[in-house]
């Protein structure tokens, strides 16, 4: 017994020591580790099997320490696995860590723990269920695959979104363990993709990407939902979803770039010129109209550019790069430049991506050129990337600034960077012909630099530059020949020799002399220099054999016995080629043409030139190698696949929607006017429907409401008002807990008659919805119809009066075909007055002054309150704030239903449930200032009633009273 317990006593003593020590210094833990690392596995085993929790915990901590250091602790498996059912949470967690690490190696023993997890999977607490599934699925033991499959299926149907999220993670784990389960797992993924929880979305899309990235068909029905949920998904999920949606969009939508091809940034002028007529003719045959779903994706990802997570910003940037119309891409520039202030590694990746982007689109980053200036403290790879970008951005206008900046870089203490700068100067010089001479002179000056790498790099670059325009530069070649003796870098020497050979006719006196020097030092030169010497000799032999014949033969002889294969081969080849003898056949005649052929100048281009074959932001792009598992981004389809696949049918809530959305025939596409008109017609009834159903289901889940609103609204807004804002609007609704009136009549007013509007007719109504754009605006829907026989273009809102009038205009309508009509939403801040909002409705050619005068009842918003609150608030608004009158009502109007109907037709207020039969109460707030407006109607005998309005806005009160009086008196 004593022997068994002695290690325990030792621990106790050590623990005691710990307490004393920990008061003195925190590093006691370290000390403890040192002491205990001497403990052998047997001791740990005994501790694990002891009765005391604290001993077990202590032992487990040590075991985890061993795992962390990469030491083998697999021997302890039986002792550890016994503790899997421990009550102590920390102990349990540490056992989990151990189990996940070693289960693979000890499969049989690991099975002992399974029953514990199976039990926990049924636990009433969602977190325990989730963690059990998490560990169970992490144990990589093939025997338990069926158990895992079952657990995943059950968890995918769990009520708790957290458990469902865990099951999405488990899918990937099971798939990597046993790929044969793919089909079953896809079923689970399909189910989870339908999930409306933001918690699940990111994880399930991750599982989709791992298991079945090619099953694009699973996404269709969930596409709009994913777009709408995106803002609220956690940041890591956003990255995964965005990259998946990028791929999706490239297969489902047509290219938005086609028409841009006509006016890319280089010939922007052409677009504005009158000769664009002709081009318009071309595009007219098949105008590009962006799929609303495509637009939805772009719009919903844009706010994420403001994310603090650099990976999210980058993924939105790449989405815009790959999906947005060319002129919209530039909105990502600022955010990308902002990322450059982040950590070094982030900078590295972002700069790589900018480098690729800046090749194709200089204009995007040119205004931010100075952000790419190099600091002496930057790491070398950051410096070279910045240099790359600056070179890409160089153009006639900014080249002088860039070159001045490069001058400082050349002097940098970091010689590798200085050399890279010289190459960059070379690139600028070839790309921009205006500065070629300046650059060349600058580079020649550098030849007298003290640093060898700088000189060598300059020589190489000068060589390349001279090749592009050799005629006028024999001076430079002479200068370089002079320098030849002092240059020792092989590449530079070789370059000079090549130049001599190539332009030997321009420096007829110097070239043979250089060859003479080379003959002397031939044996000690590097291989590359020797090869060029042989070349030079051959070329001189052909042009100036008188002087160089002997030298050439000497060099060829040296080369013949060189140690290097290449040099021997080359020598043999050259000898046969240039020295005529009986064996050499036809080739000899062409020697001159072979060796002295005019050579095309090298093109100095960016190392990032070919990187655009990879999707931006990917690992493959960063490495410029195709990484395992890289998914190609497909090309845009020539014809968009059927778009109705993305429609979600929600029959229960809005039956009309399904009808309107049904495609009439296969070949009709979205912009079909007929369909639009249909939508229009169904709209009024549709909105009725939605509002009535919403009030009935107001207690149901937010998702229910969401779909409720989403679809009818979507139909209204053919100008593709963002669904995001709709979604926000739903949230807004929920926050305000507004009760929408059970009846909202649609009175349509005329804004512009088609006679006075030269064919453009406009009507408006108040949809009585909170305004999407600003809460203090009244939402107005305008239906624009083209009654003329020609299409109207650029319909937009022009000047307004008073000038301070705050209007949220609708987006300019580019084109309205004859007989077509379109409904657009506006927001107008009336500042709680019935003063008319005057503004101009403009087309491309005409301007029409119109005005919207709201009835006072439209300036209100329903407000929900209990009877008690109503009375309390009414008590506060007495005296000056109370307006009342006795009115006579039409007899038909005395039923409470009729009263509600009449009242709500006049004013946008909410019904307050009343306990008294003869009193009806209604509550609302003014839209602009949010002042309470309380209306109460007390029925008296013989169809008279007392109408009271309590509000701070006394003018509104009297106007409202007048309107109500009229309405109630009418039959």
């Amino acid at each position: 017994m004593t022997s068994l317990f002695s290690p325990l006593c030792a621990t106790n003593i050590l623990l005691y020591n710990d307490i004393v020590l920990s008061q003195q210094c925190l590093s006691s833990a370290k000390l403890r580790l040192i002491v205990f690392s001497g403990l052998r596995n047997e001791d740990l085993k005994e501790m694990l099997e002891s009765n005391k929790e604290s001993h077990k915990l202590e032992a487990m901590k040590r075991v985890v320490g061993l795992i962390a250091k990469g030491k083998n602790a697999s021997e302890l498996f039986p002792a550890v696995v016994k503790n899997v059912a421990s009550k102590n949470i920390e102990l349990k967690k540490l056992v989990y860590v151990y189990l996940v690490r070693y289960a693979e190696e000890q499969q049989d023993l690991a099975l002992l723990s399974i029953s514990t997890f199976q039990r926990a999977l049924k636990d009433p607490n969602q977190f325990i269920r989730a963690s059990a599934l998490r560990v169970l699925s992490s144990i990589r033991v093939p025997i338990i695959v069926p158990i895992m499959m079952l657990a995943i299926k059950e968890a995918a149907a769990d009520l708790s979104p957290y458990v469902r999220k865990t099951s999405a993670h488990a899918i990937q784990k099971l798939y990597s363990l046993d790929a044969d389960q793919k089909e079953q797992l896809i079923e689970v993924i399909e189910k989870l993709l339908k999930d409306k929880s933001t918690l699940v979305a990111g994880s399930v899309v991750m599982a989709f990407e791992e298991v079945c990235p090619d099953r694009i068909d699973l996404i269709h029905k969930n596409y709009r939902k994913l777009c709408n949920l995106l803002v609220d998904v956690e940041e890591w999920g956003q990255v995964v979803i965005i990259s998946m949606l990028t791929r999706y969009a490239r297969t489902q939508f047509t290219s938005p770039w086609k028409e841009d091809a006509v006016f890319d940034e280089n010939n922007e002028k052409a677009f504005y010129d009158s000769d664009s007529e002709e081009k318009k003719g071309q595009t007219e045959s098949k105008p590009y109209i962006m799929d609303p779903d495509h637009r939805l994706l772009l719009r919903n990802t844009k706010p994420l550019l403001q994310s603090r997570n650099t990976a999210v910003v980058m993924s939105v940037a790449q989405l815009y790069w790959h999906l947005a119309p060319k002129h919209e891409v530039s909105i990502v520039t600022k955010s990308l430049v902002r990322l450059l202030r982040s950590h070094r590694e982030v900078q590295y990746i972002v700069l790589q991506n900018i480098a690729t982007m800046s090749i194709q689109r200089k204009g995007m980053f040119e205004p931010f050129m100075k952000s790419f200036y190099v600091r002496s403290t930057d790491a070398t790879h950051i410096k070279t990337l910045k240099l790359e970008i600056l070179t890409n951005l160089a153009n006639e206008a900014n080249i002088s600034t860039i070159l001045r900046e490069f001058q400082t870089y050349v002097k940098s203490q970091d010689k590798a960077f200085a050399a890279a700068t010289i190459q960059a100067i070379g690139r600028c010089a070839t790309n921009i012909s205006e500065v070629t001479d300046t650059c060349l002179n600058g580079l020649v000056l550098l030849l007298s630099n003290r640093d060898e790498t700088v000189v060598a790099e300059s020589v190489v670059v000068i060589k390349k530059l001279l090749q592009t325009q050799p005629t006028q530069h024999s001076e430079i070649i002479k200068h370089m020949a002079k320098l030849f003796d002092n240059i020792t870098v092989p590449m530079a020497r070789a370059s000079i020799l090549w130049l001599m050979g190539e332009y030997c006719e321009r420096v007829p006196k110097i070239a043979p002399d250089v060859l003479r020097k080379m003959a002397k030092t031939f044996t000690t030169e590097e291989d590359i220099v020797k090869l060029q010497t042989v070349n030079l000799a051959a070329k001189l032999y052909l042009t100036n054999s008188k002087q160089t014949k002997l030298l050439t033969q000497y060099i060829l002889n040296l080369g013949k016995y060189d140690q290097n294969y290449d040099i021997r081969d080359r020598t043999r080849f050259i000898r046969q080629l240039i020295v005529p003898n009986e064996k050499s056949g036809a080739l000899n005649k062409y020697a001159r043409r072979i060796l002295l052929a005019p050579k095309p100048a090298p093109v100095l281009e960016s190392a990032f030139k070919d990187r655009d074959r990879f999707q931006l932001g990917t690992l493959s792009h960063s490495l410029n190698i195709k990484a395992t598992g890289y998914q190609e981004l497909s090309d845009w389809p020539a014809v968009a696949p059927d778009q109705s696949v993305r429609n979600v049918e929600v029959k229960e809530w809005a039956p009309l929607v399904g009808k309107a959305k049904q495609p009439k025939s296969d070949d009709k596409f979205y912009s079909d006017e007929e369909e639009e008109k249909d939508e229009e017609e169904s709209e009024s009834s549709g909105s009725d429907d939605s509002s009535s159903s919403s009030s009935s289901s107001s207690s149901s889940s937010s998702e229910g409401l969401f779909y409720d609103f989403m679809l009818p609204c979507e139909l209204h807004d053919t100008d593709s008002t963002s669904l995001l804002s709709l979604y926000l609007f739903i949230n807004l609704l929920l926050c305000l807990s507004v009760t929408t009136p059970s009846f909202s009549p649609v009175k349509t007013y005329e804004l512009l008659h088609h006679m006075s509007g030269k064919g453009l007719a406009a009507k408006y109504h108040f949809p009585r919805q909170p305004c999407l754009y600003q809460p203090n605006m009244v939402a107005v829907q305008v239906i624009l119809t083209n009654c003329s026989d020609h299409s109207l273009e650029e319909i937009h809102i022009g000047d307004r009066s008073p000038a301070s009038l705050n209007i949220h205009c609708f987006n300019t309508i580019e084109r309205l075909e004859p007989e077509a009509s379109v409904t657009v939403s506006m927001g107008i801040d009336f500042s709680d007055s019935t003063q008319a909002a005057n503004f101009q409705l403009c087309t491309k050619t005409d301007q029409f002054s119109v005005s919207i005068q709201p009835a006072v009842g439209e300036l209100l918003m329903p407000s929900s309150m209990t009877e008690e609150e109503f009375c309390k608030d009414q008590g506060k608004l007495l005296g000056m704030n109370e307006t009342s009158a006795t009115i006579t009502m039409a007899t038909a109007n005395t039923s409470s239903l009729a009263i509600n109907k009449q009242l709500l037709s006049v004013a946008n207020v909410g019904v307050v449930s009343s306990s008294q039969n003869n009193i009806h109460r209604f509550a609302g707030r003014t839209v602009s200032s949010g002042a309470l407006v309380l209306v109460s109607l007390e029925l008296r005998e013989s169809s008279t009633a007392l109408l009271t309005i309590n509000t701070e806005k006394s003018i509104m009160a009297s106007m409202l009273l007048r309107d109500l009086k009229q309405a109630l008196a009418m039959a």
Partner: protein
Amino acid sequence: MIHSLFLVNASGDIFLEKHWKSVVSRSVCDYFFEAQERATEPENVPPVIPTPHHYLISVLRHRIYFVAVIQSEVPPLFVIEFLHRVVDTFQDYFGVCTEAAIKDNVVVVYELLEEMLDNGFPLATESNILKELIKPPTILRTMVNTITGSTNVGEQLPTGQLSVVPWRRTGVKYTNNEAYFDVVEEIDAIIDKSGSTITAEIQGVIDACVKLTGMPDLTLSFMNPRLLDDVSFHPCVRFKRWEAERILSFIPPDGNFRLLSYHVSSQNLVAIPVYVKHNITFREGSSQGRFDLTLGPKQTMGKAVESVLVSSQLPRGVLNANLNPSQGTYTFDPVTKMLSWDVGKINPQKLPSLKGTMSLQAGASKPDENPTINIQFKIQQMAISGLKVNRLDMYGEKYKPFKGIKYMTKAGKFQVRT
């Protein structure tokens, strides 16, 4: 996604490893060590390294390399951002993120890493949630735990993960309710030889320390929100409200967090608060060089420039420097050739200067490059961009909190070329 993580110290030892999927042999790090050897400076190790079967993505912070092992295509920034988040969490938990701190708290580190990733995909990275799950170690708690055998794993379940405001703990209580905001701006600038500004931009952040009971809903408005045209927010900020009204409205996380960061780009005019007069010359043939440096305040709106520190990497040929500072102290390291001068506060009446000679290697030719001068400084009670907070309001809770706002301007990467 992330397969494994290795922590490598400056001397190239792996001192911690963690695997989220099957174990990857640590020999995979050999490719990393190769790259490390090739790099002249620790910062020059490329962040992404391909190996035959894996990809290594690493970040370097606090002289520790965090090397993540990846097996297939993943956005590299995703991994990099996550690794930085891990470092931030360690720093938050242990105060520092050093090899010693990590080794001392290896169990907590393991527990954290376990919670942060599931199967290589980030699970809980929000510090408030993590703190609910795993209590940060304190001296007191370590003691109590040792005696009672209790643990630092929270008994509570991570309810925060489910709430609509996942960044905030529930049931927060304080006796003193306080909310402090620090507006800190850093100027990055490059000044050329003649003293004119080549590029200057401001990187600003608003860091908050909010200790408020319950679920407060705060709004913060600015006098001149137009300055903030390039911002990134903590997820708690309501973006639409900002878009519409230029007001920051948010339910804050508990404790310290970065509310927003903003960027005033080089296209705007940025005031430069200090100027440098310098005369650093080497003469051909002589083994002496002259060094003359004077600092002075420029556009500081009357605020004092403090904690000024000047450093410069002198050319390799310089053997020693014999200088005379008018205030503060200077050091010159003959091995790294790093000159640093701790100036302290700039007195506008008596400008600080550093004058003297440098001795060069005898016989060596004059260095052809001139050193760049890096300057650090602080200016209290001023945000150089002119950003000003208008007011802070709290809704949703009854009590009156104590509010405070502090401004500070610092030098970021402030370089003067000579």
